[in-house]
């Protein structure tokens, strides 16, 4: 009963934060636009509703596009949840996405395989490579004490430039105007889930399956328990007999595996050839998602949906209204800032809750003592 009330309260509070954030965004839009209502409509409603003259209809293709946007970010969000739960600020998800996508592409291009097997093998190899990308900063942290945040951040660029080097000099399709690889073999592509051009693939279902798997891992297995306890208090974990170093490595390896898988599935589902020429940004979005989801895998799909919806709305606003694209970035930042601020404020609220609970328990204790007498 008490728990359910808290859940409802939290959801309401989240909604209130979103509404406030949008109100701030609206102020910016009114400042920047001559047709603010049109712009707001594009931002808020157009992602799901199609306007044709006076009539409006539910836009299912646009919904598919939003869901498709969530595929890589759900994976990176899950990966960051696991790493942050261990209190490891490994930012290597970004590099892991790119490396996973690149290696999966190579298998999709150069290693012919039967239809059912090809994408599975390509994705699994991409996953493994993603894991290696976050593993290196993890090992540096545990073995020599280097900050995983700094080394993973820099390592992203190392990964990117290695990939760019091989793409430019070894794997580039010279018949094309821009730098890209040769096309994937048809058998390697991840099939579409729905008709139309939304690029919503079976990858979405796989992502949802991994939400469940990651949640079970974190809350229902001994390894997830170790990760969480080390994140809360590493001294306690060591004293209790946990192997802190290997768990820190495991958590970061898993984070990279998930990100690598996201990159591989994204590339094989959305494109026909590998054409990323810079870090794709899904790793950063994953960090945002993990913060919004409070490192709880179960909340990742909701956070990913929120960000994807916002992304789509901003896209539409910039094409269909006069709000300049720089303003779009500001609005997006304002919305995120508000939502994130709510999350950080919840720390202060937590203190209040703790205090209330302590008072309540003190009363309980006094009662027990009296009854005992």
């Amino acid at each position, binding site marked *: 009963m008490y728990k359910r009330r808290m859940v409802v309260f939290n959801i309401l509070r989240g909604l209130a934060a979103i509404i406030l954030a949008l109100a701030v965004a609206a102020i910016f839009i009114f400042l920047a636009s001559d047709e603010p209502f049109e712009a707001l409509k594009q931002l808020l409603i157009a992602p799901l509703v199609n306007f044709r003259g006076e009539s409006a209809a539910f836009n299912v293709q646009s919904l598919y596009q939003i869901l498709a946007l969530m595929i890589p970010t759900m994976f990176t969000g899950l990966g960051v949840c696991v790493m942050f739960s261990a209190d490891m600020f490994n930012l290597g998800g970004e590099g892991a996405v790119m490396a996973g996508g690149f290696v999966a592409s190579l298998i999709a291009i150069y290693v012919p395989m039967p239809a059912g097997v090809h994408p599975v093998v390509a994705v699994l190899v991409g996953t493994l490579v993603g894991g290696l990308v976050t593993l290196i900063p993890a090992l540096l942290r545990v073995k020599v004490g280097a900050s995983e945040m700094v080394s993973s951040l820099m390592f992203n660029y190392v990964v990117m430039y290695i990939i760019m080097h091989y793409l430019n000099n070894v794997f580039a399709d010279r018949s094309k105007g821009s730098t890209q690889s040769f096309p994937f073999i048809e058998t390697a592509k991840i099939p579409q889930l729905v008709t139309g051009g939304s690029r919503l693939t079976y990858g979405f279902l796989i992502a949802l399956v991994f939400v469940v798997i990651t949640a079970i891992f974190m809350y229902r*297995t001994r390894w997830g328990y170790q990760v969480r306890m080390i994140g809360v208090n590493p001294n*306690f974990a060591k004293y209790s007999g946990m192997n802190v170093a290997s768990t820190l490595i495991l958590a970061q390896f898993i984070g990279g595996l998930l990100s690598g898988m996201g990159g591989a599935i994204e590339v094989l589902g959305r494109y026909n050839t590998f054409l990323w020429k810079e870090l794709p940004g899904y790793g950063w979005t994953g960090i945002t998602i993990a913060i919004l989801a409070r490192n709880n895998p179960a909340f990742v799909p909701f956070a990913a949906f929120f960000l994807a919806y916002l992304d789509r709305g901003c896209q539409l606003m910039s094409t269909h209204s006069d709000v300049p694209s720089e303003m779009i970035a500001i609005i997006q930042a304002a919305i995120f800032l508000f939502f994130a601020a709510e999350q950080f404020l919840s720390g202060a609220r937590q203190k209040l809750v703790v205090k209330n609970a302590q008072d309540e328990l003190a009363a309980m204790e006094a009662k027990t003592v009296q009854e005992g007498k």
Partner: protein
Amino acid sequence: MGAANDTAQNIELAVDMRNISKVYPNGIAANQNVNFSVRKGEIHALIGENGAGKSTLVKMLFGMEQPTAGEILLNGKEVQLASPAQAIEHGIGMVHQHLMLVPSLTVAENMVLGMPPKKGIAIDYQAAVRMTTEIAERYNFKIDAEKRVMDIPVGMKQKIEILKALLRGAEILILDEPTAVLTSNETVELFQQLRNLRDDGFTIIFISHRLNEIKELTDRMTIMRGGRFMGVHNTAAITEQEISRLMVGRDVLLELEKDEADPREVVLSVENVSYTNEWNKLMLDNVSFDVRAGEIVGIAGVEGNGQKELVDILFGLRNAHTGEVKVNNASILGKSQRVIREMGVSLIPEDRMLYGIAASGSITDNILADRYANKEYNVGPFFRAKKIQKDTEQLIKEYRIVAKNQSQQVDMLSGGNIQKVVVAREFSSRPHLIIADQPTRGIDVGATEFIRKRLLDLSREGAAVLLVSADLSEVMEMSDRLLIFYGGEIVASFDDTSTLTDEVMGEYMLGLRRQEKKELEELAYV
């Protein structure tokens, strides 16, 4: 008795703290109606055991804590000290026990930290060096202003801390256990400099629990025990025995019914263990003793005499430099905590918030910490959630932990209940050896009684118990045998605690007496 109250108002007081009480938010009353007055130009000792409330009292004088009741007068005027900055403004300087210098900066840079001399917008480094050298020469301190702090010895660092306070205009200097990290030569030098400062008119408050140092250095002393004021005395007029009696003493005893111990095989054997800390100080000096199944061996001593290091070594959290530690005849040195636990060792850690619990975890999370990998709680890769829940509920009931349910966050519980969570975990793993380090520190009477009773029951059921405690009544009541630590050595061993008096205990604990080698050897291995 050398009572030296300042009833006559013609003596000029630098510090006058009247009827000070301090209750912390967690309910611990650290100071109760304490009076503390220091004359201008004297070296005044503040003396008492750990937990006597000395630190709390000076923290209030330095503006780090605010008193719950009482008033503070400086040079006869009442003041409110809301922050250390205000205390510094009033001419108070504090040298902390843990030196607060930036190791990678030079001495001069540390000296002017927070108040750098400026040349335009840049820091005038040469001026900082000049200021440092000047003030060092004025007070006859020998320091090298341009060396990095990480490259200089501890004694020098302490001088810099003192000079830092002087540079900020301090007239009243508080030194919190300044000799704890010093070698004896450095101590001699420090004392000379403190005397010089006194002769220059500075007022010095010297916190310590080392009787010989206090006798040697100070003019007067204020004694505290258990958060209470135990009187102020002229140092020359009081004997060490009297100080020890006032300082160490038992509060009201909790009566505990205790059967005769029936010691059986040796479970823990400690042989010739020595340990030198990171400041090259010998913290454990050739310590040897045994603990047998079915008995409680107590370790008493003023904190900082090697007990903490010993416990860390016994649980693999520190490495002994020489010697051997065996549990059931197998060495534990170099083993991980998991292996040590598997050998049947349990530890109630001294610092429960740092080691004992995961504060934001649930009670279940905290109970599970040493057993989450056990077969009974796992099926394949998954936890057996129902079994875990059932067993946790059982322990909550058994250990009378007051909580709403097992998923309650541990840091919401009261101190006593947090400790019961730790104890429930450590006692329920069927240990052969229980190391209980300050098991009842800072918790309420009910929980204290409960934990002591449990510990006693376990020992009578056949566990070996090593009890380390600064609480005299606890070690004396509980122990079947008692060892006293002083300066990293066992200076006394008793196999009957019932005839021991507080006075005798105090004299051993403060290093005024020690048993002969031979007598000790016989008793350490009964």
